[in-house]
């Protein structure tokens, strides 16, 4: 069995499983139930096989190379699965497996409204595309896989096409992702120009011949291209509208793993293919990471669409991953490979953690939405009593994303902090300041994320229901609960066994070309993690143990100190009036003070409308409404000027288009003569 998993044939088996799932679902589209089970069933089997396959490669620490030649020039279907690829395959498989189990129950609420067959088709192709992206080892093949992933996810974003908002979000996504792809193509062809090959392996070997200027241009192109997919600010504008539009299990995959393919390619390009990164690359990524994490969480705070809020948190967490990645690049340029390992491990660890808890939160959001049929958290409330399991799992996810111990989010943020601290101890003046400011950004981000999830959890699940839908919500299907439960358990398991996981990740990080030669360090010793030669020591099991012991002692203390007192259930203090749901704090109210503090960044706008009983006698208002909104600074300061510039250039270009056929023939003639002259020379 194990030797079978090592063979390259498994790749084909995995791909064919998803293809059968895709085509079969399309054929069975007449029967909703059958199409659902077929599509998601094959996705479950496929992700299970690919997960085992990746785990096996990680365990045996070998590289699997496999190539199918084609007659098309430059294109080779070459797979090269090293430990970095295997790690990402493992994350993708894990999340898609859980999401597919979840989808078995979740898709039911689309029955008779939408075509289940096409959902199954695009869903399976999407997963296959994701896997191909991290497996491909040829630039052209990679671009094809990248397009499969982008296009299928576009169709999944516009799946609920009755809502016009979703179609709009899809169009924005389609445009932005292709702007990104254009930069990626440019980066690859610049590499091809020097190295003469489209194979990643050949690029890696020939990249040392690149001139510094060319290398910097490739860096910028890759940063924009893959950064668009990862959702870094200010290229993020598609993300908060596209992720919520897709069905929730697809949102979970998009936020959990699809944006991570951008991170994967960052590592592949900057650590593996391009050698000797200059200092400013790392600094640049640190700054991008700080800005994305801080602004991401601030926008999330202002949001009261539950899925949009989660989407903004994806931007925040990509920022945190980039903080680890950027510090690692800085260390690499200074030749401090041991520190560079720590930074990369932190980035990889947070990638894994974010995939888990963000998928968990999106699945939780889906579970709520399937009951309440709205994404507006102001219309929830009190759901903890009606949906206890969803509430518990969402709480675990909220705690993990707020980096609260002993869950997994805490550990990777801790390691990122340590990586930034190491930078502050080993560099002088300006670089040190960047590291310290990044640490400060991360500190504020952690605090604001906790605030945001107190808001999200509190307003959604606690107190009294605010709408009829919320009043009549019921707990979701078993398959939804299983999906969320598995992920919730994983946040704790990975959190507590963080030492072992980081040892595994140090193997992954050490296999990257740029870090080759640094001795593979095991940063954890019997699950106690040591960073920077005893600079910092942390044991997650001890943390869990001490928390449990403290809880136990508290319980015993209360038993000893207090007698048998009565507990009466009564009304909340209502100041003498009847309590209505409108007296509870709303999401807008909760975050209002923080938005006011950051009003120079967020630019909130506010409209008051007062209607009076008597227009002349303005003493008795009939209704008083306040409309709060954030001013979209990216639109007005970045995209609008860009668009205007584009239109201006196009206007100039139009002058040569006279509409006169003779003129066009003249252009063709001139172009032809020009080409002939160049060739003849």
């Amino acid at each position, binding site marked *: 069995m194990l030797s079978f998993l090592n063979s390259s044939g498994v790749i084909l088996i995995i791909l064919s499983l998803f293809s059968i799932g895709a085509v079969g679902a399309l054929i069975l589209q007449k029967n909703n139930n059958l199409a659902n089970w077929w599509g998601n069933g094959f996705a479950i089997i496929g992700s299970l096989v690919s997960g085992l396959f990746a785990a096996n490669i990680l365990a045996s620490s070998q590289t699997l190379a496999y190539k199918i030649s084609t007659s098309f020039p430059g294109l080779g279907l070459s797979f090269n699965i090293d430990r970095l690829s295997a790690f990402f395959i493992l994350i993708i498989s894990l999340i898609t497996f859980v999401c597919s189990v979840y989808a078995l129950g979740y898709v039911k609420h689309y029955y008779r409204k939408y075509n289940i067959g096409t959902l199954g088709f695009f869903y399976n192709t999407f997963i296959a595309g994701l896997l191909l992206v991290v497996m491909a080892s040829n630039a052209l093949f990679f671009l094809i896989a990248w397009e499969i992933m982008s296009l299928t996810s576009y169709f999944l974003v516009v799946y609920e096409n009755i809502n016009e908002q979703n179609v709009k979000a899809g169009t924005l996504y389609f445009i932005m992702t292709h702007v990104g792809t254009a930069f990626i193509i440019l980066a690859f062809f610049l590499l091809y120009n020097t190295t003469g090959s489209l194979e990643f392996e050949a690029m890696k070997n020939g990249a040392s011949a690149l001139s510094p200027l060319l290398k910097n241009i490739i860096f910028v192109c890759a940063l924009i291209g893959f950064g668009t997919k990862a959702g870094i600010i200010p290229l993020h504008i598609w993300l908060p509208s596209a992720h919520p539009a897709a069905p929730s299990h697809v949102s979970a995959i998009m936020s959990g793993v699809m944006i991570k393919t951008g991170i994967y390619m960052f590592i592949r390009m900057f650590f593996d293919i391009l050698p000797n990164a200059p200092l400013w690359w790392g600094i640049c990524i640190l700054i991008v990471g700080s800005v994305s994490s801080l602004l991401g969480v601030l926008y999330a705070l202002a949001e009261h669409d539950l899925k949009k809020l989660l989407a903004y948190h994806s931007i925040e967490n990509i920022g945190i991953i980039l903080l680890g990645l950027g510090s690692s690049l800085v260390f690499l340029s200074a030749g401090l490979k041991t520190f560079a390992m720590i930074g990369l491990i932190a980035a990889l660890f947070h990638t894994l953690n974010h995939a888990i808890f963000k998928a968990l939160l999106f699945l939780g959001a889906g579970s709520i939405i399937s009951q309440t049929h709205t994404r507006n958290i102001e219309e929830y409330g009190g759901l903890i009593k009606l949906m206890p399991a969803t509430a518990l799992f969402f709480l675990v996810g909220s705690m993990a994303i707020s980096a609260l111990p002993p869950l997994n989010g805490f550990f990777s943020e801790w390691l990122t*902090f340590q990586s930034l601290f190491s930078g502050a101890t080993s560099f002088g003046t300006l670089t040190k300041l960047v590291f310290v400011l990044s640490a400060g950004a991360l500190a504020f981000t952690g605090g604001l994320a906790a605030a945001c999830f107190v808001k999200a959890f509190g307003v959604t699940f606690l107190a009294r229901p605010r709408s009829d839908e919320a009043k009549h919500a019921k707990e979701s299907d078993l398959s939804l609960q299983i999906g969320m439960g598995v992920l919730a358990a994983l946040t704790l398991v990975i959190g507590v066994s963080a030492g072992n996981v980081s040892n595994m990740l140090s193997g992954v990080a050490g296999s990257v070309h740029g870090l080759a030669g640094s001795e593979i360090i095991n940063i954890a010793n019997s699950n106690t993690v040591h960073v920077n030669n005893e600079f910092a020591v942390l044991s997650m099991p001890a943390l869990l143990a001490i928390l449990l012991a403290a809880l136990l002692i508290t319980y015993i203390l209360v038993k000893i100190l207090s007698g048998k007192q009565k507990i009466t259930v009564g009304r909340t203090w209502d100041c003498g009036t009847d309590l209505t749901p409108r007296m509870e704090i709303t999401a807008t109210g909760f975050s209002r*003070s923080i938005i006011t503090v950051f009003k120079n960044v967020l630019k909130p706008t506010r409209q008051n409308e007062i209607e009076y009983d008597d227009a002349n006698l303005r003493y008795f208002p009939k209704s008083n409404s306040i409309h709060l909104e954030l001013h979209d600074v990216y639109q007005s300061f970045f995209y609008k000027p860009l668009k205007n510039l584009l239109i201006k250039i196009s206007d100039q270009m139009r002058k040569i288009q006279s509409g006169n056929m003779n003129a066009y023939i003249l252009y063709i003639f001139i172009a032809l003569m020009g080409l002939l002259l160049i060739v003849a020379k």
Partner: protein
Amino acid sequence: MYSFIPWLLQLLFIPAFAPLCIGLTRKIKAKFQNRQGASIWQPYLDLWKLFHKDEIISEDASWVFRFAPYLVFGVTLAIGASLPLLSTLTRLPTGDFLGIVYLIALGTFFLALSGVDTGGGFGGFGGSREMLVSSLTEGGLILSLFTLALIAKSTNLFSISAVMLAVPSFAIIPAVLAFISFCISMLAESSRYPFDNPATHLELTMIHEAMILEYSGKRLALMEWAAANKYLIFISLAVNLFYPAGLATTLGLGSLLIAFGALTIKVAVLCAGVATLESSIAKLRIFRLPDLLFTSFIISLIAISIIA
């Protein structure tokens, strides 16, 4: 190896003396106001009374509301057990300062949720304000402790204390700046002036009291006690990290007694400092608080940048 008995003693140290700290602070404040004031043991009696009272729980509240006091109190116990209170010897693997900061955040998270849970206006706004203050405190808190970590070349609190016992001369100015920054964070986290008034239920200004408004009986006792613990935790962090004089470096009974004496004096002095501050300044408007917290962040930033 850390044996169990001293660990248990350390675990109970904070809860045993925290109410006394509150009592002392109140007494000094009363003297400032020309009042006799209650005895410094009064907080113990209050807790005892609350533990023996019946409870009313809101019908809107869920298990979060019922469970939160245990967690909030438990977290302070866990932190208390991971601090260098009397000796610098025991390097616990949980004594990392980031671990402590995020454990505090864990308590705050559930405290704020319990405020929202009852569905009253006060609890919700209390939770909102608490998260505003605590999220903006985090930057100054982490960077001020990081200043010390940079001097001590370790993020473990026990190592920091050990190094600060013999402060290298270059570190004095950064440490003083970090201390100022830490004190601002301390006042914010332990709900004291100018951030919050621990003695009032004025609906326009209360933060901590608003969150625990619906609690009664033993759960209120736990919440009050946890708040006292947090106060003492921050005070002992302030004195034992920045001015660890007297801290035991050997595990003899004599040196531990000296350490206990030194800690008592230092804590009493800082309590007096807090009480003096509370008696001499007014509470700030809520939208002035972020300015103060950002100041704390900037001071730490300066402290770090002047460390050679």
